[in-house]
Structures are given as structure tokens and as C-alpha cells.
């Protein structure tokens, strides 16, 4: 394998992995902040319990999001130095701004939030989580603006002498039509994940509570490594979990509507600026007018010919152009047009990959939303979850929108190929020329092993803290004349 192929695989592995933690971070940060707000405003204990419980899970997830994010920033220079030279004038600015305006906000105020429960007034402490959450929401904008430049370069000029793209209009970069539709699409997708996680975890506790008999008084806490649990009384716990299911499922449903609306707008922008990606998403070889949407197509293994399919007439025309009879360009016609512009070569991405990831993105997202709706319906008016099938369903609930995020990004990034920056820089031209196969192989091997190990540690830790349930709120006893101990300590 060439250094280029390896560098691409490494980018794919590290980015997809990083992006397991990002939607959780953004979604949960805002939800935890909202629940803490509910506690500060109503004073109800259940909200405090939920804030602490989900706050802990949020932090376990956040740690991995941060560390895998540093790799992303370094990787551009390490493996893609020619790319960095080519776009640095444009791409570097949003990256630097992301760190300066968003990451500092996120990390600094989260630090105070974690340790500040007994050091700050209730309202100031609440402001800390909101500041951290706004950092996460803001960071998404900058990095998506940078990515959108790669999909649809705007606000630049090509400097022949230096062989690089140079910024001419920063506002144009920040208001790229692609980022304007991608940002809401991504944020709503994050809230789908956060909401589904809240609902899934709380739903599981309700399900477990409904199936296990209430323990006899006098039963001690289980041995092992679980924290000694003098947790809240069963009625409070049940009320807390019910609220979390409701908050989570409603967030999931509202966000999924947002994802659909913004996704629809995104399709139209994509048709204009990256028609090849739209054609590839549909495996549409010939230009059609009107174009029908293929729900499912079985083609020959090389993706060149269709064997069997189910189609919805006019739907693709609508998705792509907003009219029922709009013309949608096919891969062959686009290939000819691109050859005329850019010279000989193949300008189509991997068609089966784009076709299937596009469908899986939609299917997984919709399945998550439907499951959320069903959970909300099944718990209405104090109804219990008892059926044993709820276990796999509740485990699947957060994973569906999470994996929908992953395949969505695989679609959008592989759909841009063979370009690194659409129309400007082919992917092969972006790799570091001096980096050897051995070097990339080493780093890819190390990251894959390290990330795999961390995934095991992280998931097991998550499950442990999910199982442990709501925390104990009784304060520690303080000896006279001593400072109160830290409420939280590493």
C-alpha cells in the first residue's frame, strides 16, 4: 500500500473514532446544562440527581473526545503537509479560532464545573456548564466552516506563484452555503444522539426497576467495586428516570425533525455545488428528468449496472431541486463535463460506498427517531416497561443515531473524492511527500491499537456508571476545624 492510501485509512480511522465522542459531547453538554437549569429553577431533587448522574457519563465521554481531537489537528501537518501548505491560508484560520474561542471555553469552564460544586454559588456554577456547552456548540461551527471549504471552496483566489489557495473573503468562508445547512444538520444530529442516550439509559433503569422486586430493608449494598449506594428512595429515583426518558425522547424527536428539514436543504445545496456527490448518493448513472429516488437498488458488485430496485417516482427530483420535475445530472454526464474542465481522469467517488452510506445514514436516523417515539408512547401516564425485548431496544436507541452520524460523515467525505478540496486539489496531491510508508504504518498501527484499548476501557466504565445508578447526595462528615473535603476528586 502507498503512503497515500495508508494516510487516508489513518484519517478515516481516527476521524470516525473521534466522531463517536463528538455528538455525545455536544448533545449531552447542552442537555446536562438544561437539566441543571431545571434543578436551579425548581429545586427538585430529581433534577440534581440527573445532573450529577449524566454529568459523570458526559465527562467519561468528553475525555476521549478531547484526546482524539488533538490527533486530528496534528494529523493535517503530519500526514497531509502538502494539503496544509495549499489551504493553510484559509483552513488554518477557523482551526485557530476554534481553539481560541471554543476549546478554551469548553475545557476551562468544564474544569471549574467539575470541581466547583461547593466553591461557587448555585447560579455561577450553572453558568459554568452553559459556558462549556456553548464552547462545544461554537466549536462545531468553525470546524464545519473549514470542512465546507473542502466541499465547496469559496472566498479565495488561486496564487499561481506560490501554488496555493489564498483567502480573499473570510465572511464568504464563514457563510459558505454548505456550512449554513451543514451546521444545523450536524447540531440536530448531535441532539438526537444526546437525547437518545438520555432516554436509553433512563429507560433501561425504568425497565430494570419494573422487573426487579423492591429490595428488603436491611439488604446491604453489593460487594465488588460499586460505590456504596445509599441512593435516593425508589419513588424519587423512578420520578427522575421518567423525567429523563421524557426529556431525552422529546429532544430526540424534535431534533430528528430538524435533521430532516436541514438535510433536505442540504441535498439541494449539494446538488448545486457537488452534483457528482448527489449522483453518487443515488448511483444515478444517466441524467434523469424527472428523477425517481431509489429506496433500494441491488446492482452488480462493481456498482456499474442495476439488477433490481424499488423506486419512488419524482422524489429525487424533489430532494435535489425542490421541484417534482427537476433535472438531476447523472454520473456519466458529469464525468464528461469534469474531464472537459479538469482533464482526463476519474471524477466519480466509490459509488456503492456512497450509495449505501447515504441510505444507512437515513435508515439508522429514522429508526432511532421511531424507537424514541415508541418509547415515549410506551411510558405515557406512568406505564411500565416490562417486556424483555426492551433490553435490546434500549441498548440500540443511542447507537442508532450515533452510527447514523458516522455513516453520514463517511458518505460526505468519500463522496467528495477524488478531491481533497473540490475542484482544486486532488487527494493524492495533499499527502506529505517526505513521510514514509513505515512511518504512516507505525502511527496507524499505534493509533488503532491505542484507540481500540481505550474503547474497551471507556465502554466498560460507561456501563459501570450507568449500572451504578443515581448518586448519593449525602455530604461527607467533616471533622471540626477542618476544611470540607473536595466534593469531587480525581
Amino acid at each position: 500500500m502507498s503512503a497515500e492510501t495508508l494516510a487516508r485509512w489513518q484519517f478515516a480511522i481516527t476521524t470516525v473514532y473521534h466522531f463517536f465522542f463528538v455528538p455525545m459531547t455536544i448533545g449531552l453538554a447542552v442537555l446536562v446544562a438544561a437539566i441543571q437549569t431545571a434543578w436551579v429553577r425548581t429545586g427538585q431533587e430529581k433534577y440534581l440527581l440527573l445532573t450529577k448522574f449524566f454529568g459523570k457519563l458526559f465527562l467519561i465521554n468528553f475525555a476521549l473526545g478531547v484526546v482524539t481531537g488533538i490527533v486530528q489537528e496534528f494529523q493535517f501537518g503530519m500526514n497531509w503537509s502538502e494539503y496544509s501548505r495549499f489551504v493553510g491560508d484559509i483552513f488554518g484560520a477557523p482551526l485557530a479560532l476554534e481553539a481560541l474561542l471554543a476549546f478554551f471555553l469548553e475545557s476551562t469552564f468544564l474544569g471549574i464545573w467539575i470541581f466547583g460544586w461547593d466553591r461557587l454559588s448555585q447560579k455561577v456554577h450553572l453558568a459554568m456548564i452553559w459556558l462549556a456547552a456553548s464552547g462545544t456548540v461554537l466549536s462545531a461551527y468553525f470546524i464545519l466552516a473549514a470542512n465546507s471549504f473542502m466541499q465547496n471552496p469559496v472566498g479565495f483566489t488561486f496564487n499561481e506563484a506560490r501554488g496555493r489557495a489564498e483567502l480573499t473573503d473570510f465572511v464568504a468562508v464563514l457563510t459558505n452555503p454548505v456550512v449554513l445547512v451543514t451546521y444545523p444538520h450536524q447540531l440536530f444530529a448531535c441532539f438526537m444522539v444526546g437525547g437518545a442516550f438520555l432516554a436509553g439509559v433512563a429507560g433501561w433503569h425504568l425497565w430494570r426497576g419494573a422487573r426487579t422486586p423492591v429490595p428488603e430493608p436491611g439488604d446491604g449494598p453489593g460487594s465488588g467495586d460499586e460505590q456504596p449506594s445509599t441512593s435516593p428512595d425508589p419513588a424519587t429515583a423512578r420520578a427522575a428516570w421518567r423525567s429523563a426518558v421524557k426529556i431525552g425522547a422529546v429532544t430526540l424527536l424534535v431534533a430528528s425533525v430538524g435533521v430532516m428539514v436541514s438535510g433536505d436543504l442540504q441535498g439541494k445545496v449539494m446538488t448545486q455545488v457537488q452534483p457528482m456527490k448527489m449522483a453518487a448518493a443515488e448511483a444515478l448513472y444517466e441524467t434523469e428528468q424527472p428523477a425517481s429516488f431509489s429506496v433500494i437498488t441491488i446492482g452488480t458488485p462493481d456498482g456499474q449496472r442495476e439488477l433490481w430496485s424499488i423506486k419512488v417516482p419524482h422524489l429525487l427530483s424533489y430532494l435535489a431541486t425542490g421541484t417534482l420535475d427537476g433535472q438531476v445530472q447523472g454520473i456519466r454526464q458529469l464525468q464528461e463535463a469534469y474531464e472537459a474542465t479538469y482533464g482526463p481522469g476519474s471524477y466519480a467517488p466509490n459509488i456503492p460506498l456512497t450509495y449505501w452510506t447515504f441510505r444507512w445514514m437515513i435508515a439508522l436516523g429514522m429508526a432511532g427517531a421511531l424507537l424514541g417515539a415508541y418509547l415515549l408512547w410506551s411510558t405515557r401516564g406512568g406505564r411500565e416497561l416490562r417486556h424483555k425485548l426492551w433490553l435490546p431496544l434500549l441498548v440500540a436507541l443511542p447507537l442508532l443515531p450515533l452510527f447514523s452520524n458516522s455513516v453520514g460523515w463517511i458518505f460526505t467525505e468519500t463522496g467528495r473524492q477524488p478531491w481533497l478540496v473540490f475542484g482544486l486539489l486532488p487527494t493524492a496531491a495533499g499527502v506529505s511527500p517526505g513521510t514514509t510508508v513505515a512511518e504512516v504504518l507505525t502511527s496507524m498501527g499505534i493509533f488503532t491499537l491505542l484507540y481500540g484499548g481505550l474503547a474497551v476501557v471507556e465502554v466498560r466504565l460507561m456501563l459501570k456508571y450507568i449500572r451504578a445508578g443515581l448518586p448519593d447526595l449525602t455530604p461527607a462528615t467533616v471533622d471540626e476545624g477542618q476544611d470540607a473535603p473536595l466534593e469531587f476528586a480525581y
Partner: protein
Amino acid sequence: MELTTVWFILIAVLWIGYFVLEGFDFGVGMLLHVLGRDDRERRVVVNTIGPHFDGNEVWLITAGGATFAAFPEWYATLFSGFYLPLLLILVALIIRLVAIDYRSKRRELAWRQRWDLAITVSSALPALLWGVAFGNLLRGVPIDADFEYVGGFWNLLNPFALLTGLVTLTLFLTHGAVFVALKTDGVIRERANAFAARIGVLAAVLTVVLALWLNLRHGSGVTYLTSAVAAGGLLGALAANRRGREGWAFVGTAACIAFLFATAFLALFPDVMPSSLDPAWNLTTSNASSTPYTLTIMTWAAAIATPVVVAYQAWTYWVFRRRLTVSSIRDDVLLPDPARR
């Protein structure tokens, strides 16, 4: 002043901020077992940096992003050229942050021992390697006419760079010990104070040797001055430490690190990454930079945001200004009794 010069200074400030702040983080991590003899004490030590270490690391991310934005050629050559050292640093930074976050998440002896060992090793590695990287940056590395690094890995291991690595390692150890002395009370404070006095002497000797070597090779009037301030800062820190004035000692070690890196950046300027093959192939503030338009936008953003960031980070140190003692740690989070050591 030219914008490229402004950005050279700003990037220097970001790196200095990173090393002053994460420097004591690294020191605290390395000294976990030296200053904390049991589970409870180690928790005190690690929690001196608990609320801060995550925010401190953002200085690195910002320095990297700012280099990308302001000097793309520098970013590209540096990061692709120093591939393996940066890979090691990345791995260490990943493990370190996770280790600090996760060490107390299970009340199990083996779990905690492993993560604590990981904290120590993964703090030492970047403390050494950042020095090695900056030593090479100063010394000049093989860069060809296309601004590509052509030196390979072993070329980075040379006496000057290794000395620089040892200087950052010992300086961060001193800085970390002084920080622990400043942030704790009781037996840990005494131990940290005594350790700082010993390691500080070694750090001072190495720093003076490096400062002389650096100035003889790359020096000018102003770098002699800044290295003198750096050495003076460290000596002042040692004197203050001896009297138990940890606040001043911390100011001293911080000044030493800041002025030492200022010396390095002054010695570099106007180059950002000199070539050891041909001075014509040096990357400089002008041939490595972004356009004036990009730099102008970035200047505005930095001018407005940086003071705000510094202010709120300073506030976090104020919020958590109280010294920690062994009684700061709740009994119920410690390891079960027989396993406590």
C-alpha cells in the same frame, strides 16, 4: 510592526503559555509517586492540577492552530518532519489525560496503580521530547529547497537537542514540585519543597550550560539578557523555596521557563525553521507566512479573545486558590483499606 512579526510573537506567547502552564502539570504528573506515598497523598497531588490541566492543554492546540493559520509552511514542515517525536508526544498526551480522568473511576488497586504509572511516564515523555524538538528547531535541521524535512528520525537525536530535552525535563520537575508546594499543606508541601531544592540545582546547572551554548551559537545582545533573566528567575525561585515562600518560587520558575523559551524564539527570529543544508532554504517569517489579509483577521480575533481567555483562566486559579491537604480527600473514595498502599 509587520504582521508576520506580530504573529511570530503571538505564536511564541502561545508556546510560552503552554510550557509555563502545562510545564507544572508535567512536573506534577512525573512526581506523583515521589510526592505522594500512598493513595490518599497521590490524590492530593493529582488534584492540585485537577481543575486546570485540561484548560492548560488548549494552549498547545491553539499554538498548533495559530501556526497552521499564520505560517502554514512552518506548520507543514515541522509536523511532517518531526513525525515520530510528535507521534510519541501525541500518544503520551492521550494516555495522560485519560489516565488523570479515569484513575479514580474504579476503587481497585491494579486499576489505580496502572493509571498512576501511566500518568508518570506520559508526563515525562513530552516533558523531554518537547525540549528535544525545540533544540532541533533552534539548531537547524535538514530542509531542502521545497521546504521538506529530509533528515529522518536519528538526526533529531543530537547532543544539543538532548541537552535541551534534559533542561525542559528538569525545569518542569522543579516547576511542578514548586507548584505542589504552593498548592498543598502539611507533609506533602514539605516533601515538595525539599524535592524542588534538590532537582532545582540540577535544573539550574543544565539551564546555564544550555544558555551558554545557545548564546555562543545563535546569540545576540538581547538573548544574553533574556537568558540571564531566565537563570536569575530559577536562582530566585530556589532562594524563595528555601525560605518557604512558594508563591515567589513559582513566579521564579515560571519566569525561567518563559524567558528561556523567549530566548529560543528570539534566537530563531526572523527564521522560523532554519535549514542546516543551505541558509537559502530557511523557513522565515516572510516565506512561510499566510497572506496579510488572513493575518489581519487573525490579529483582530487574537487581540480581542486572548485577554479574555487569560482573564478567565486566571480566575480559575483564584477560585481554587485554597491549599489541599490529606483531609481534602473523602475517605469513601479511597481504595479499600488493605490495598491502600
